């Protein structure tokens, strides 16, 4: 109940950010009881409150929230007519509500799992199935392994080279120099402070593409380990994502303050959103990494397909050109390319110093949660075939 009210208010807040609170508040308050009651009723009808397995929980939550939001919209329209009803706010409300309910249920399931631990003394290996809750719990238990795997990769990467970590800075510098020359002198892209703009997109893109490339080897290159030690396999791709994330954060920490100083950009409130969008990108990247890591165990072609897909995606993502330069009709397509919402958000908050628009929020949230859920589901359902595939 509280969740529903909070989501609804938050949705209106996002939709009408910038406009005066007084304008929409009366509408929000007037329609709120209907929306909340409809959503609650639908949750009850779909049995979201009952105990169940992970997958059916996802289905039921989606069904309940979609149904609830649709019913709410219909009721609001029927009772109040068209005035003051914001479709965008309703859809944002649906998204927030779904996330909140899913998070709440997952937390509750995890808690129950913890309580139930040790209840039955014996487990049946034949009936054992990896569950999302169980995997998360054992990931927490194996956090030392995640840390060590990340440290191992960092050490291996930099040990024995004279410049060490500096190499990770050289690559973006060279890329930015090349693209800057090409786009300011050859193609004449009219963007003030193009280097800063380019840097934000390029670093964010490099994080994704490095993580995706590396994750294809996460499972198949650890054959021996998979055949002799039992641990949650999802650790391997997740550790590669955290490894590339570490490098990304280190380069951001070096470059972004330098750029802010160089272009005399004052810090502004939207920049506080950076961790939120980075978190979403990490979730999205983990989902993609899980899919690629498990998929490569079945089809080695994925490695080669990924290479091609990445080079196409690079140009479909507004990295070397601003989204505003894209033709109106093409803009939704560019924004819907999977990495775009995160890149656009970084550019918005650092370069344009604005709050990211609602569409970026919606697409970003949808991709990160969608890929994360799809990746986890796929990986967990394939997990015990992986050792036999190698």
């Amino acid at each position, binding site marked *: 109940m509280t969740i529903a009210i909070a989501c609804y208010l938050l949705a209106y807040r996002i939709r009408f950010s910038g406009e005066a609170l007084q304008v929409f508040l009366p509408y929000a308050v007037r329609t709120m009881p209907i929306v909340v009651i409809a959503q609650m009723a639908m949750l009850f009808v779909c049995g979201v409150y009952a105990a169940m397995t992970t997958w059916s929980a996802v289905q039921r939550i989606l069904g309940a929230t979609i149904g609830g939001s649709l019913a709410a919209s219909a009721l609001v329209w029927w009772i109040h007519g068209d005035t003051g009803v914001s479709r965008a706010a309703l859809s944002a409300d649906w998204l927030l509500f779904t996330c909140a309910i899913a998070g709440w249920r997952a937390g509750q399931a995890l808690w129950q799992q913890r309580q139930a*631990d*040790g209840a*039955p*003394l*014996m*487990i*049946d*290996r*034949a*009936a*054992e199935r990896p569950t999302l809750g169980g995997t998360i719990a054992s990931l927490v*238990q*194996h956090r*030392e*392994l995640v*840390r*060590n*795997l990340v440290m*191992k990769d960092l*050490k*291996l990467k930099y*040990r024995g080279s004279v410049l060490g970590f500096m190499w990770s800075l050289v690559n973006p510098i060279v890329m930015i120099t090349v693209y800057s020359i090409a786009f300011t002198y050859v193609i004449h892209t009219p963007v003030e402070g193009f280097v800063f703009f380019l840097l934000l997109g390029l670093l964010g893109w490099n994080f994704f593409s490095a993580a995706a490339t590396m994750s294809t080897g996460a499972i198949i290159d*650890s054959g*021996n*380990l*998979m*055949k*002799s*030690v*039992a*641990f949650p396999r999802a650790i391997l791709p997740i550790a590669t994502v955290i490894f590339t994330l570490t490098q990304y954060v280190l380069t951001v920490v070096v470059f972004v303050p330098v750029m802010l100083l160089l272009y005399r950009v004052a810090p502004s409130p939207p920049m506080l959103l950076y961790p939120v969008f980075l978190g979403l990108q990490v979730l999205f990247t983990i989902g993609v990494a899980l899919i690629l890591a498990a998929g490569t165990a*079945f*089809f*080695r*072609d994925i490695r080669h397909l990924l290479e091609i897909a990445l080079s196409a995606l690079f140009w479909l993502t507004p990295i070397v050109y601003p989204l505003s330069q894209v033709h109106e009709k093409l803009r939704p397509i560019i924004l819907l390319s999977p990495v775009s919402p995160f890149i656009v958000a970084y550019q918005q908050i650092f370069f344009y110093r604005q709050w990211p628009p609602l569409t970026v929020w919606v697409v970003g949230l949808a991709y990160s949660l969608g890929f994360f859920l799809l990746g986890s589901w796929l990986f967990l359902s394939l997990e*015990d075939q992986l*050792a*036999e*595939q190698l």
Partner: protein
Amino acid sequence: MEPVIVAEHLSKRFILRHNRDGELKVRFLGLFHAHKRERREEFWALRDVSATIGHGEAVGVVGRNGSGKSTLLKLIAGLHRPTGGRLLVPRAARIGTMIELGVGFHGQLTGQENVYLNTSIHGLTRAETDAIYPAIVAYSGLEHFMDVPLKNYSSGMHMRLGFAIAAHLDPDILLIDEVFAVGDAEFQRQCMRTVAEFRGRGKTIFFVSHSPEAVRLICRRVLVLEHGELLFDGNVDEGLDFYARLLADPASSSHAATAHA
């Protein structure tokens, strides 16, 4: 005696894939040429195996190559899922596996770094590793080499470090698969002493081996597997005699081989 491992009509089927490239190419060509298609063949590594192992028992498992010994061990370890039957293991017990020594070692990392990486693969925290680290180093006898990258180790040193780590993980159930066979006599003696010590401390041991002497030294009970079926379960001396007769009897092996084919 409280049971810790219960197998009921346990079976495991593997799918053997001939002509498998792991590539879409194979699937694509398979559409046109029957002989290029991936051929799948079922292989039953275990068939209807039932046994109950009690707390503190040391059980040896013998059998020819391909008889399903390692598969049974991997099922208990949770590396593969059984195809049929039930296999109960305690939820809370720590199951230690010695299937291959030094797996997950990395040549570029030093001995010390490898120890910390390896223990964390088995789920230990940093503090837990700190506590056993001196014992691991002392046991392996590699005090002077812990800061040297593992690529400079001899294969014997490699193995000693691997066993030292495995020996200090302190599991409740220890699953051992033929890991000592590769070492020299001195190494094997050290390993056998350690395993005997485990047994003395009341740990449950599941010991897969080709060596009757090693099994006799550690176990009082033995399981004999042949083509995935459990042929004998009982006293170690009788079991090893049974196994010796099985190996000596050409009729049984050829009979079994035709039955399998």
